């Protein structure tokens, strides 16, 4: 039978096992089956970046993966960013810089920024802009997001 499959995966450190229709996208699985609704759907064709999560550490559009493809994978979503009640430095910097208005793009941007900062130490403003250019924010005009990411990189020193 190839229309449904059993998958096992880890999301934010927690193990899940689920029977999923093979055509279900990963983002629909996270939101609909695991109730991890922090990851958002903005376009479903890989342009807006709202659904960005980390798949085995790599920032990935979860609308462009099938849930079955995540079998065995280790995922991280925005819900896994804070350490309990303690916000991640990126989250704090976003608030401090007013880097969100409606907040819909924010989870995807946070996950993108997470990988970007892991791979790029002491980025320039231009590098940050390039790094987040795959995530559309319709509210802020990006400047405060760029500043928030620069802040965190400077904190990390």
């Amino acid at each position, binding site marked *: 039978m*190839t*229309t449904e*499959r059993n998958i096992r995966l880890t999301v934010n450190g927690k193990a899940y096992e689920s029977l999923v229709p*093979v*055509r279900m*996208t990963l983002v*629909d699985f996270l939101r609909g089956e695991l109730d991890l609704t922090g990851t958002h759907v903005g376009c*479903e*064709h*890989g342009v807006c*970046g709202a659904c*960005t999560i980390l798949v085995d550490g*790599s*920032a*990935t*559009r979860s*609308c*462009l*993966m*099938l849930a*079955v*493809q995540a079998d065995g994978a280790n995922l991280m979503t925005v819900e896994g960013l804070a350490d309990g009640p303690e916000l991640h430095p990126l989250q704090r910097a976003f608030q401090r810089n007013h880097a969100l208005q409606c907040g819909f793009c924010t989870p995807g941007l946070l996950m*993108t920024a997470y*990988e*970007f900062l892991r*791979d*790029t130490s002491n*980025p*320039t403003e*231009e*590098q940050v802009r*390039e*790094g987040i*250019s*795959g995530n559309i924010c319709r509210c802020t005009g990006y400047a405060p997001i760029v500043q928030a990411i620069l802040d965190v990189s400077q904190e990390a020193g």
Partner: protein
Amino acid sequence: MKPARFDYYSPSSRDEALELLGQYGDDAKILAGGQSLMPMMNMRLVRPKVVIDINRIAGLSHITPRRDGGLAVGAMTRQRELERSALVLETAPLLSLAIPYIGHFQIRNRGTVGGSLAHSDPAAEIPAVCLTLDTEFELASSGGERTVKAEDFFLNHLTTALEPVELLTEIRIPQTVGNWRWGFQEVCRRDGDFALVGAATMLHLDDKGICLEARITTFGAGGTPMRMDAAEEYLSGSSVNADDRSEAARLVSDALDPISDIHASAKYRQDVGGVMVRRALEQALLAQALPFNEGEDAA
């Protein structure tokens, strides 16, 4: 906007994948990085009966030196790995130069070299670079393998020499010996978009700066990336000075017969195609090897 129903297979070996392809042929779609196929499936513009996911096949992702000095790249190698590869930078700097222009890093994290080639968008970077590098492609089917040159691979808009039962398994980039220079230019509406039009160039210069061989490819200016024969011939034997570059650009524009779409007119692509070639040639002459550095540890 959800995919239509399909049957899903995730073969763990190449042979298994080829067997499935042999069985389903036209009814099947290969799912590689999914960065082009998945949007089309989500929009139901593509409704394969069968999806063959080749992400779990070992041995399709590698960047290895070949005995003849060239480079072999597995079809499932992620674009991001190429971007970070010192070996690619050393052996095929044009590829390193072009990769950062593909989408955004999240797209490159997932997108594969083979997926880009098999999809063959006429404005995509990897096909244009492969055509410029005189790359060869290994196509496999359950009946065996064959090798196709890049110039014979891209047939028409989103159409390649791949038969329905065939899988692109590896690309082979020949070694370039001598004083080669590289240039890559494109113009987009936004960074990361498919190019309105672009050009890739390679120049082989002798020690006096005379061009021994010129390779010029335009992309986004026709159904496939195209080598610009007239301009290449013109430059060969020249010193590639400003007049030569302008003449090459003119020859390129004359040779192009692009189409209009909502992002640019045919005339624009024709004219700016020449401009891109001229700038890519300037870039090639100015740069020793690799002027592009995305800011990460390139090595």
